[in-house]
């Protein structure tokens, strides 16, 4: 199945001359926290060969590859790659254009919303290729991989096999001398897998100098490699050609050879899986029945008229290429998805998503590991046991039993993330089994699990089926597993091609193996619908090594690479129109809401009078207040008790008490006291009320003085002319709208920028930054630019709204305002980038950004209280926060008619903020994983 490599050319371990080695490792060690991933590895990888790393999951294969690729920081030891120390940043910068690294996981380093062409194009740009060169190379690669019919399909919609081919295209775009592939075919169906290796073979024939290092869990693939490194527990067990390994262990195949190489305690207990035949009792009870199941998503029919019946206790295998509808069928059986047409029955009862009882009889294990990584093994088991309503007293016993049965006893208090995939899959199965279900539905349970663990897993399935009469419905890509099933169904493009026992299927096609039979069926089905995407021989021949672009990897700052990131970010933004719309439309709505809502001109205050005098004069006094536009009079107060009660209820904000004999005392010139009680619960309001009352009192006094004393009172008469400048109408809108623009242009761009980076961290595509020649500054600036552009557009919209909708006149220089806005959004996005260097999870990033933008802009930036009046830490923040200065400039240009000259002093901090924040981000950003 794999391209036959040149026979016997493997260099003996350690014996190869130095120049022949593409990488040399000396005493390399690596730890994740307390877990030791690699320990004292000394190894030479021969150049120009196809080198395979084999071994179970979690033995350090991926860690080793990421170290060699320079994606991870070297902790211990020395690694020389392509003739230099990979720990040396300069060497990394110079050699990374010669290395290509394809990380583990289907399309983990691809961008799902970008098309096939755009994905490759992005990588080509990162390596500084010109337009013509890019188009030529992409064309050739697409043709060679058979992806040429769908250059415009989004990567997220590709099947697993196609994703891997696309990943290969991206890796090969710059003619690497060293190609590193981490489990490239895990989770890929046999046909695609075969095509993938044929493709690698083609490419190697054309570029014989290229070294390829592959990690794989498929021993039959490793069989065809030139040179193998068998690893276990962070150590190298053995190295050599496949033939040498077989010879030294005396095993018939690599699977057996590997098991023989394992230390004694790991080998113990392993034996080949034998599943006894099912007892043929007469009465057949059907556990699962599907009749004409059909599932449509819009126009797309994912599952088309699928029918089968599975008797109780049978192991039923489900095979098919990626994306053929297996998972969808399983979801319909579990009730996760309601079928568009047809019926599914479990134990004769129709599947009903609301039927809780049926769910208790089913155990489901989904394709991806979907247990809670934040809970320990025991906590996961316990949670599921309780959710399945097991009797609480039975739970500890059952958990112990499961732990023993699935070999989890020693890791009960470990977090799943710290466990190798194989053990995690066992945990998943234990969880699915905890409530002793009658049916197990398993979606690719052994994808990415090594042979030893897989055998153990199937032994368990066998026991469950034969001893406990559990019906097992399982999907798989492994042919040796399919052979273990009682019956299998082959599925393609939503339809079942054939359903029978494995032997009968092989017989029907007159094929030698099940794999051949399977591929035969698939090719027949594909041939009926479309031309097979088989690589055209010779197509790869055009991939002649082009002269290496001189610029790539050399320049410290390359505009083209930066723009590659900008372009990609812009494309992603364009593919997610909701995000851009939210950013643009949302700010306008917010401006509207906040502009109208914040009204500092306090009005409609409630007050009531406790008038113990009740004369014309006392009425005159209260009328002064009641008549103003600020106050609304409420029914009079009866006594102090009433005053207290109504103020406590918040019914009145002000109470006036006029003493008995008020009028008489005033006329006799005796000093009287008018009492005013103000509700101080909300200080700003209390403050305003106090100001109003004092003012009105003074006014009343002057008025009365004139009436009483006539001209004598005019001596010393003077007026204070109040001029409200910049906002003569004292309208809140004029004061607030210019201040809301800085607020919005801080929050939204910072949030977008921080998530653009943290998202890459969480979803894995950050790896492209680690292993391509992009520098930190190029990466940061490239990410920033589209958001600066979006925010600038946003700024223009907000200003237009302010002027034309809110009618807030722009009296000063528009140029000054725009220049300040540009500097400001640059600083705001840089602040987001700085935050992103600290955050790993998107939740923390969202929370952190909300904290660091919302409070300082609303409270410390002079939007309501001027910065000069703040105190303590808030004053400090106000002085260094860029929003403070943009508020000054926005108000200056909008209301005060100012321009560059007058506002110069506010520009300086804005000019500094962006570069300082960006430089800090660059300093804190890591170019390698820790």
């Amino acid at each position, binding site marked *: 199945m794999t391209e036959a490599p040149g026979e016997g050319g493997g260099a003996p371990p350690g014996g190869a001359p130095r120049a022949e080695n593409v990488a040399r490792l000396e005493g390399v060690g690596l730890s994740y926290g307390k877990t030791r991933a690699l320990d004292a590895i000394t190894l030479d990888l021969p150049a120009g060969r196809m080198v395979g790393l084999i071994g179970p999951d979690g033995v350090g294969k991926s860690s080793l590859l990421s170290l060699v690729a320079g994606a991870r920081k070297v902790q211990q030891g020395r690694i020389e790659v392509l003739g230099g120390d990979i720990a040396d940043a300069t060497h990394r910068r110079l050699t990374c254009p010669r290395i290509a690294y394809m990380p583990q996981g289907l399309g983990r380093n691809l961008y799902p919303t970008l098309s096939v062409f755009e994905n490759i194009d992005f990588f080509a740009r990162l390596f500084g290729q010109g337009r013509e060169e890019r188009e030529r190379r992409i064309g050739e690669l697409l043709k060679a991989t058979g992806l040429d019919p769908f250059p415009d399909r989004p990567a997220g919609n590709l099947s697993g096999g196609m994703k891997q081919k696309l990943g290969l295209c991206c890796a090969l775009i710059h003619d690497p001398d060293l190609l590193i592939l981490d489990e490239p075919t895990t989770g890929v169906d046999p046909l695609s897998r075969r095509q993938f290796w044929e493709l690698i073979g083609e490419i190697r024939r054309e570029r014989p100098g290229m070294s390829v290092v592959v990690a794989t869990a498929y021993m039959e693939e490793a069989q065809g490699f030139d040179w193998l490194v068998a690893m276990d527990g962070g150590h190298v067990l053995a190295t050599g050609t496949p033939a040498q390994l077989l010879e030294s262990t005396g095993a018939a195949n690599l699977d057996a050879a590997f098991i023989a190489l394992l230390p004694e305690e790991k080998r113990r207990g392993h034996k080949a899986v034998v599943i006894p035949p099912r007892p043929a009792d007469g009465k057949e009870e059907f556990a699962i029945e599907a009749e004409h199941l059909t599932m449509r998503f819009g126009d797309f029919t994912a599952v088309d008229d699928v029918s089968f019946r599975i008797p109780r206790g049978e192991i039923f295998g489900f095979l098919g290429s990626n994306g053929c509808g297996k998972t969808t069928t399983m979801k319909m059986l579990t009730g996760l998805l309601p079928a568009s047409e047809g019926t599914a029955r479990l134990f004769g009862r129709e599947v009903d998503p609301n039927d809780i009882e049926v*769910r208790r009889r089913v155990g489901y294990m989904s394709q991806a590991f979907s247990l809670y990584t934040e809970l320990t093994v025991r906590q996961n088991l316990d949670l599921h046991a*309780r959710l399945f309503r097991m009797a609480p007293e039975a739970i500890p016993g059952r958990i112990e039993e499961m732990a023993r049965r699935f070999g989890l006893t020693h890791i009960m208090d470990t977090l799943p993330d710290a466990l190798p995939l194989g053990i995690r899959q066992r945990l998943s199965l234990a969880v699915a089994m905890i409530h002793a279900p009658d049916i197990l539905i398993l979606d690719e349970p052994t994808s990415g699990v090594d042979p030893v663990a897989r055998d153990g897993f199937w032994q368990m399935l066998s026991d469950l089926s034969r001893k406990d009469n559990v019906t097992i419905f399982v999907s798989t890509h492994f042919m040796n597993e399919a052979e273990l099933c009682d019956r299998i169904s082959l599925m393609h493009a939503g339809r079942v091609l054939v359903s029978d026992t494995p032997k009968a299927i092989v017989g029907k096609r007159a094929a030698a193996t099940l794999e051949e039979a399977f591929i035969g069926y698939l090719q027949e089905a594909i041939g009926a619908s479309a031309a097979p995407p088989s690589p055209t021989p010779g197509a790869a021949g055009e991939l002649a090594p082009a002269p290496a672009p001189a610029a790539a990897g050399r320049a410290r700052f390359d505009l083209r690479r930066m723009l590659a990131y900008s372009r990609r970010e812009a494309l992603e933004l364009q593919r997610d129109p909701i995000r851009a719309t939210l950013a643009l439309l949302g700010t306008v709505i917010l401006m509207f809401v*906040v502009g109208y809502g914040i009204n500092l001109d*306090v009005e409609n205050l409630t007050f009531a009078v406790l008038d113990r005098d009740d004369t014309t004069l006392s009425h005159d006094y209260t009328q002064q207040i009641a008549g103003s536009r600020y106050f609304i009079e409420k029914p009079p107060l009866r006594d102090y008790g009433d005053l207290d009660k109504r103020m406590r209820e918040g019914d009145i904000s002000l109470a006036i008490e006029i003493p008995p004999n008020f009028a008489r005392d005033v006329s006799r010139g005796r000093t009287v006291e008018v009492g005013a009680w103000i509700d101080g*619960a909300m200080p700003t309001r209390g*403050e305003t009320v106090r100001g109003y009352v004092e003012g009105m009192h003074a006014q009343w006094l002057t008025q009365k003085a004139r009436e009483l004393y006539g001209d004598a009172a005019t001596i010393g008469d*003077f007026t204070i002319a109040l001029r409200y400048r910049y906002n003569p109408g004292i309208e809140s809108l004029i004061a607030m709208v210019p201040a809301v623009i800085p607020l919005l242009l801080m929050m939204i761009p910072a949030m977008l920028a921080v998530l653009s980076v943290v998202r890459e961290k969480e979803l894995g595509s950050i790896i492209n930054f680690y292993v391509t020649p992009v520098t930190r500054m190029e990466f940061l600036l490239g990410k920033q630019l589209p958001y600066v552009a979006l925010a600038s557009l946003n700024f223009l919209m907000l200003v237009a709204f302010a002027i034309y909708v809110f009618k807030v006149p722009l009296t000063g220089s528009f140029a000054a305002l725009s220049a300040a806005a540009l500097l400001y959004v640059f600083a705001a996005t840089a602040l987001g980038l700085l935050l992103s260097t600290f955050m790993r999870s*998107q939740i923390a990033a969202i929370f952190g950004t909300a904290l660091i933008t919302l409070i300082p802009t609303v409270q410390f930036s002079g939007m309501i209280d001027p910065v000069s009046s703040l105190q303590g830490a808030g004053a400090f923040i106000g002085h260094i926060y860029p929003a403070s200065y943009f508020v000054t400039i926005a108000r200056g240009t909008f209301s005060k008619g100012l321009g560059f000259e007058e*506002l110069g002093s506010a520009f300086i901090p804005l000019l500094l903020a962006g570069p300082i924040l960006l430089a800090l981000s660059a300093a804190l950003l890591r170019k390698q994983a820790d």
Partner: protein
Amino acid sequence: MRAANVLQLGIKELRGLLRDPMLLILIVYSFTVSIYTASTAMPETLNRASISIVDEDRSPVASRIVTAFYPPYFTVPKLITASQMDRRMDSGLDTFALDIPPNFQRDLLAGRAPTIQLNVDATRMSQAFSGGGYVQSIVSGEVNEFLNRYRGETEVPVELTLRTRFNQELNKSWFGAVTNVISSITMLSIILTGAALIREREHGTIEHLLVMPVTPVEIMLGKIWSMGLVVFIATTVSLILIVQGALKVPINGSLTLFLMGTALHLFATTSMGIFLATVAGSMPQFGLLLMLVLLPLQVLSGATTPRESMPQIIQDIMAFAPNTHFVILAQSILFRGAGLTVVWPQFLALLAIGGALFFLSLRRFRRFLR
């Protein structure tokens, strides 16, 4: 619905939270340092209002006026010339500029009613309003005292005795502290529930839950009680240690009653978090939506500026926001010492809003799971 499932699902959420140290740090920060900083930064009444004076008279009465302005209400006034005044105000250096005209004292005594000009930067509205009144009364007071030596009794003998209740010194940090607690409560409860739900979907664990005998109501309630509890505990600790302890804010009313109100508010905001998560397709969209919701909640709930001064339409819309009622409730209970007999309408409103949000998000949540 089974209580045991709800309990188990909630415990799972709590365990998950414990594994995210960065998030825990942020929670602690937002309920301690952030509240303390924001509250102490708030100017008490009128604080350090910047003023400069153009003294073109240089008479005794003018110097009386100049010396009447001093910290903490005002900055020490800068004596400037008329030509400097515009420039200083333009660049935002001064909020107030007082211009005492030439021959002010002479004209005053001659009964010619001279005019002092007070320029106010009206773009700084909070200071412009309260400060303007202060400046006027200070100037009047000084002039009057000066005049008392020159003229007979012409005063009307009415004195105004102002008493401020519940917060005698109108200390803004008291109210500010509570406001900041409220913002933190709202922000955190929405983020914790909403983002946790999106994360479950992005990591595929939600699907796993759905094949088990648990219902959407149970999943939702599990998130609501657990995340609500975290915020509830943080609130209680923050009120006792930071608000009452470090900031020394006297609490007049019953803390227990307020915490009961907090629980109701949390019911509403956690439901809102789930609702937003079902609307947002991805984390970035959720982040943006969050900003769009949080800002109006904070600014228009009546915590920043008095609610009664807002346009009627905004008041009406904000009546549907839980924060509005929670802010009223907080003011009433914590400062005015009101009891349940006073705040029951707010309790009822919170319950109604919470209930409506819960059922709305439950409906969306069911569809979201499809």
